[in-house]
Structure formats: C-alpha cells, structure tokens
C-alpha cells in the first residue's frame, strides 16, 4: 500500500513565548485515517501544538501543513475542513443543545439545505436527541462534553483535533467518550488527540507521540513503544518508603532502570533471578505508563 498523504504534519516547528520555548523543533504527522495520541506531562507543549494547528498561535519557525493547506497562510481553509474539540468547555451555556449546534453549523458554513440534517447527525453522535431543547447549563458534565465533541463534527470534518477530551470526567463518562472517539476512528476520520491519560492513548491511538519540553521523545504504536523502552515484563515492588529507596539503590547498582510508581518502585527489564527484591514484589506486563515516566522524567514540573 502506498504511503497515504498525512492529514497533518509539522516539521521542525518552534514556538517561543518570551524566554520559554513551548514547542522546540517538533516533528509530527498524522497519517490520514489514523488516530495519533499526543502524550506528555503538563507543560510539554501539547496545548500549544493544538493552538498552532488552528493558527491561534503562530509558529516562530518550521512548517505546518493541515489537510494539504499551509499554515498560517491558508489556515482558514484548513479550519473549514477540520473539527476542533477544545480542552475547556466553551459552549454557550444559556442556549439549548440544539441552538449551540445551529450556531456552529453557521460558523462552519454548512450550506442551508444540509443544515437540518447536519444538526440531527450531530445530535445523534452526542446521543442527545431527546435533550435538544435542554439548556446547556442543565446538562451533566458528560453530556456537555459529548455536545462539545458533536459541535466540532457538525460539518463532517475529515480531521478532528481533540484536546484532552476526557480531562476531569469520571470513569463511566470517560469510557462513554472513548466509545464515541473509537466510532469516529472506525469511520476513517483522522484524529489528533492530546492527553495525559496513558490508558486513553493506549486504547484509542494507532500511534502515540510522547512529548517532553516541546520535543518528541518517542513515537510508535503503543505496544511497540512498550516493547522498545520497557521490555515485556517489569517488576513492581511495594513497601514503605525506606524499603523502596533500598530497592531502587539495589536495582541501580545492578544497572537496571527504575521508576517510582507512587507507592511502589518499578524495575524495568527482565527480572528473573534477582532474589533480593523478589520477596515483596510482583511481576507484571510493562505498560505505556512505564514508558511515559521513563521518558518524560519523574519530577513534577
């Protein structure tokens, strides 16, 4: 199969805010029809990257192309054909569900004959057909987020930017939104989704790009990243802080990488035959979180 034209690409993109370099030579591509998860700790430059893609931030250097349009010059065309779901809920809260969608069907220039159908479609996506006349401020958090997503889809975009789509929501609502996003993906819509929930990226993304300090530190399919950076199995040792420090020192002296997992220490790599720590630890499959913390560091910014 020939390499398909990417839905969006960034090459060597730099964005500075005064002395801070938010995005520092970023290379990123979303192949058409795939979902790319942009993973990184707070302050890694994910939100800035999202703003660059809608030309709400202008890059200092590098090239950005979205759906074949060059940014920032042709960003209006690009925006007409993509959907954006912001991290912060900016629905019009005194309007009804339907009115919010009507407004965006105009802003996204859905031609008049298609408008009613587009709104029905969006209501169906958000599963809010029987709430169409409810004011937004009377909706639950999950419903609002579904509406926020549907609002960005009212014009049937080929590409969707999801900025932290499930941040601050309870597990049930998150799963419901994952199902919605998965459905979009199965329809062939290209998705760039920023998140700092590892599980979200692991479940939804075809490939994951891990960002730290404005740069890409690793990318690939989640399983491949885990294999490459954390191996198949890891060993997690639970215990009081003093014991954890001991285990860490022990593993380090044996040339192994470790990471703190809150109440435990995870030792990376094949661990068979190390008797010292095995007593109070468990062997488990390595996951993307191990990779994430290994690559982006443990300190909290």
């Amino acid at each position: 199969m020939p390499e398909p034209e990417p839905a969006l690409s960034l090459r060597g993109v730099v964005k500075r805010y005064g002395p801070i370099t938010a995005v520092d030579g970023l290379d990123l591509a979303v192949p058409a029809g795939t979902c790319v998860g942009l993973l990184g700790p707070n302050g890694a430059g994910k939100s800035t990257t999202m703003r660059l893609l809608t030309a709400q931030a202008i890059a200092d250097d590098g090239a950005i192309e979205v759906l074949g349009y060059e940014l920032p010059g042709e960003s209006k065309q690009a925006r007409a054909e993509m959907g954006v779901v912001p991290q912060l809920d900016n629905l019009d809260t005194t309007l009804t569900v339907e009115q919010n969608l009507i407004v965006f069907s105009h802003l996204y220039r859905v031609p008049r004959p298609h408008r009613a159908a587009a709104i029905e479609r969006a209501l169906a996506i958000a599963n809010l057909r029987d709430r169409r006349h409810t004011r937004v401020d009377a909706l639950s958090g999950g419903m609002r987020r579904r509406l926020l997503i549907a609002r960005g889809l009212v014009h049937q975009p080929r590409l969707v930017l999801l900025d932290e789509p499930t941040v601050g929501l309870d597990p049930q609502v998150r799963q419901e939104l994952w199902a919605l996003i998965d459905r979009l993906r199965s329809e062939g819509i290209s998705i760039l989704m920023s998140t700092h929930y590892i599980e979200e990226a692991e479940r939804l993304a075809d490939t994951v790009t891990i960002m730290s300090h404005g740069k890409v530190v690793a990318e690939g399919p989640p399983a491949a990243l885990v294999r490459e950076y954390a191996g198949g199995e890891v060993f997690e040792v639970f215990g009081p802080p003093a014991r954890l420090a001991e285990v860490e020192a022990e593993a380090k002296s044996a040339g192994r990488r470790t990471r703190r997992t809150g109440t435990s220490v995870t030792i990376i790599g094949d661990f068979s035959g190390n008797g010292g720590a095995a007593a109070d630890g468990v062997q488990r499959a390595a996951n993307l979180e191990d990779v994430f913390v290994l690559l982006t560091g443990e300190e909290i910014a």
Partner: protein
Amino acid sequence: MTSAEATGQRAVPSAPPPPREGRRLRRFERSAVGGVLVREMINFSSYWRSTTFSSTVEPTIYLLAFGFGLGSLITTVGGGISYKEFIGTGMVAMAVLFSSAMPSMFGTFVKYSFQRTYDAILAAPVDTEELVSAEALWMAMRASVFGCAPLLVAMLFGLDPSWGMLAVPFINFTAGFGWSCFGISIAAFVKSIDNFGYITSAVITPLFLVAGTFFPIDQLPEWAQILAQLNPLYHCVELVRHAAFGWEGWADVWNYAALVLFGLLAWRVAIYGMRRKLVN
C-alpha cells in the same frame, strides 16, 4: 441517503459532505461575519427582555428626573427648545453609548477570558478581523434600535415627531459601531476586568461633560468647546438634535464625518488589539 432517525447509536448517519473542495476563502468573508451574527442573535433571544427593559426604563427615569426637576428651573435652552426636548434628544447619544461601549467592553472580556467563546469561534473558519467586525456590527444594530428609546419616551412627554428623526437610527448605528469598537479595544488592552472602572470614570464620564447632553456646551470655556470637537459623543448629540429640530448643513456633514472617522479608527484599533490578544 440515510435518514438520521433510522440509524441507531452505533452507526453515525452520514449526509452528503458539502461541496467545498478547492474553494479558496478570502480574507474577509460575509459568511464568517454572518456566522458570528447568528450566534449573537440566538443568544439575544435568551436575554432580550432584560436588555430592552433597562434601555427603555433608564431614559424614562432620567427624563422624569432631569426634565421635570431641572426643567422646572429652565424653560428653554439654546435655540428656544424646551428643556425636556433638549434632554430627550441629548439622551439618545447616551443611550447609544450605554448600549454599545459598555456591553462591548464587558461582553468582549467575558467572551475571551471567562467563556472562551472566541477560542471556539477562531477554531472555526473565522478570523479575528471578521469576528471583531461582526461583534461591532451586532452592537451597532442594537444601539441603533435602543438609542431610539429616549426619543420615543420624550415623544410621550410632548416632543413633536419630525421627518428628520428618521435619520436617528442611522446616526445611532454609525456612533454605535465606533463605540462598540472602542469597547472592544478597551477589553483587548486591559489586564483585568477590574480596570474597567478606570475607563468609565476617567474616560467616559468626562466625555459626558463636554457632549452637550444635559447642558449646552457653548457656556463652557473655549478649551472645552475645542475638546468637544474630539468627542464622538458630542457629534452624535449634535446630529440627533439637528435631526429633530432642523439640519445645519456643513456643520452636520462634519459631525457625521467625525463619527465615521471615529468608527474607522476604533475598528482598526479593536482588530489590532484583539488579534494581539487572541492569536499569539
């Protein structure tokens, strides 16, 4: 074609994608401005009652207070018009100011800073220039209508209708456009919503004093009269009074030109300020 009703939850019903391939969007597009206007109009449908109430009750109270209070001391002003008529026409400019500059200041700040509405709009195919122009146009339309309220109230108290008054909505629109761009500019340059207090007391209140709303400015010192020429509120007051009581030729051409000039200048400043704020 799939009917939206017929499809269940699992499949998302699809409609034919709108034709847009290869379409080149221009820098300033009517449909972008239209989209923002639609948003404002739909929002207006949820709060028009309170706005209409305050914009008609306020001038009534002023008219009663000043018209009957001061009016009992002063019988005629300037060219022999009654004080009630003087106030009734003068307050049109004030109503325009209060239904354009103030809501633009607060509305703009709330929409970009608290509600993040502008982030959502700029993620759609709308640029800052179109956004600002649409918001100002909407405010100008509102001010054009609400600005007529004092005139209508004054008619209830004895102001005679005249043909010239038909020009008042257009005068209001022009002044309202400038004032709402002024309000947007202020919102774009202040750091916090608390700073609006400085603008209302240090800029807007003094503008009143040299506008001729409540008293004619020809009694003021000469410097104040010269300053008045730089005051858009003064030109609006003059135009509305002349519309009601008789045009004054070139003086009114200048008055209107001043409003247009003010509008154009404030429009560009508002766009510059908002672009700095929204795109960075």
